[in-house]
C-alpha cells in the first residue's frame, strides 16, 4: 500500500490531485500503514517524488507531510503507545474488512457505513486507532458513487433494498456480536442494515433527513419508505442517534427517526465554548473522548 501510494503521488502535478490521492489513501490505510508512511515522509532527505517542477517540490513536500501529520496527531489522541494492528482484506468489490485477528469467536463485527467522503467523519486510521483489534473487526461499506446511497451499494445492488440483503451474505460469520455504525448519509443505511445483518446495536451519527429531495433521483424507494418498512425490525435492538448540539437539522432528523423507532436513544454531543455541528464525532478526538464514546454506544465494554 505504501509503495502504491508513493507511486501514485509521483504522478500528480497539482496540489489538488495530491490532496485527492492522500484523502483516498486515508480512507483505506490502517494505523500501521499511516505510521510507516509518515515515517518515510519525515526522513530528512525525503522530497516529493515525480513530475513537479523543481520550484514547487518544497510546497508539495510540505503539503503531503502536513495532511498526514494531522491524521497522526489525531491518532495519538487515542492515548495508545503504538499503532493498532489491523489487516485489510477485500470481502467483495468495493467492500473491505479491517481485521484485527483471524478468529471471530469472542469478538465483535462492526459493519460501518461512511458518509459521502467515504469516511466516518474522519480518516479511517483515526477510527481504527480508537478501537481494539483484539476486540473488533471493521467492515467498511462505502457508497463509491458519493450519492448518499440513493443508488444503492454498487456492485451489490443499485438500490439499498437490493444491496443490503446481498451485503449480509458477504459478511464473515462466527462473531459473538454484530453492530452497525453509520455517519452522515451512512446513518440511515446503518439503521436499515441492522436487522438484515443481525446487529444487536446501531450507532447513527448525524443521520440525514428521511425526506432528502435528492433521493427522488434514486432508483429505489424513498428513505422514509425504507425506514418505515425497517422500523419494526429494530425493536429489541439498541439504537443510538447522535447529533451535534449546534446542528438543528440533525436534531430534527433524530426527532423524526425516534417517531419511527421510539426506543432509540438520542445523544446530543455538546461542549462548552465549542460549536458541535454536523461532524459531531470530530470534536471528541482532541478531547480524548472518541474511544469511550464508541465503546459506550457500540457496546464494546
Amino acid at each position, binding site marked *: 500500500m505504501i509503495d502504491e501510494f508513493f507511486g501514485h503521488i509521483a504522478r500528480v502535478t*497539482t*496540489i*489538488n*490531485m495530491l*490532496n*485527492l490521492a492522500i*484523502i483516498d489513501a486515508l480512507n483505506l490505510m490502517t494505523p500501521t500503514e499511516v505510521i510507516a508512511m509518515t515515517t518515510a515522509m519525515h526522513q530528512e532527505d525525503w522530497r516529493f517524488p515525480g513530475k513537479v517542477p523543481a520550484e514547487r517540490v518544497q510546497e508539495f513536500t510540505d503539503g503531503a507531510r502536513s495532511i498526514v501529520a494531522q491524521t497522526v496527531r489525531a491518532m495519538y489522541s487515542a492515548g495508545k503507545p503504538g499503532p493498532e494492528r489491523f489487516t485489510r482484506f477485500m470481502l467483495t468489490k468495493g467492500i473491505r474488512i479491517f481485521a484485527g485477528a483471524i478468529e471471530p469467536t469472542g469478538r465483535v463485527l462492526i459493519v460501518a457505513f461512511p*458518509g*459521502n*467522503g467515504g*469516511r466516518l467523519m474522519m480518516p479511517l486510521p483515526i477510527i481504527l486507532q480508537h478501537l481494539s483489534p483484539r476486540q473488533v473487526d471493521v467492515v467498511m461499506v462505502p457508497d463509491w*458513487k*458519493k*450519492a448518499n446511497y440513493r443508488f444503492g451499494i454498487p456492485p451489490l445492488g443499485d438500490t439499498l433494498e437490493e444491496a443490503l440483503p446481498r451485503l449480509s451474505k458477504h459478511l464473515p460469520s462466527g462473531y459473538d456480536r454484530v453492530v452497525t455504525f453509520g455517519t*452522515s448519509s451512512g446513518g440511515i443505511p446503518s439503521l436499515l442494515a441492522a436487522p438484515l445483518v443481525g446487529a444487536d446495536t446501531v450507532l447513527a451519527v*448525524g443521520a440525514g433527513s428521511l425526506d432528502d*429531495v*435528492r433521493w427522488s433521483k434514486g432508483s429505489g424507494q424513498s428513505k422514509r419508505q425504507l425506514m418505515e418498512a425497517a422500523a419494526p425490525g429494530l425493536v429489541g435492538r439498541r439504537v443510538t442517534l447522535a447529533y451535534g448540539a449546534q446542528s438543528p*437539522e440533525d436534531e430534527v432528523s433524530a426527532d423524526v427517526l425516534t417517531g419511527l423507532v421510539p426506543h432509540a436513544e438520542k445523544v446530543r454531543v455538546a461542549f462548552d465554548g465549542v460549536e458541535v*455541528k*454536523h*461532524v459531531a464525532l*470530530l470534536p471528541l478526538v482532541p478531547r480524548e473522548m472518541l474511544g469511550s464514546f464508541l465503546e459506550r454506544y457500540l457496546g464494546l465494554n
Partner: protein
Amino acid sequence: MGESDLRQMLVDAIDGSTIVGLRRSGLMEGFLEGTGDIPFAALEMDSMGVMEICIAVEVNTGVEIVPAELVELGSLGAVVASIRERQA
C-alpha cells in the same frame, strides 16, 4: 463551460461531498438561477470540504484553485467568477 454550467457543477460537486450546508442554507435555488450567491459561512465547510471543492473544480474545468486561494474567495459566486477569469 458557461456560467450556469459552472454553478450546476459546483452544486453537484457539493452534493457528492462531505459538505452538508448547501441545501440547508436555502440559498441553492438562487445560486443556480444566477440571482444569488452562497457565502462559505453558510456551507458548514471544514478543510476537507475546501479540498473537495478544489478537486472538483480542477477535475471538471482544468482550473487549479488551491485550498488557500479558495478560502480567500469567500463564496461560491466568487469561485465561479475566478474560474471564468482564469479560463478567459
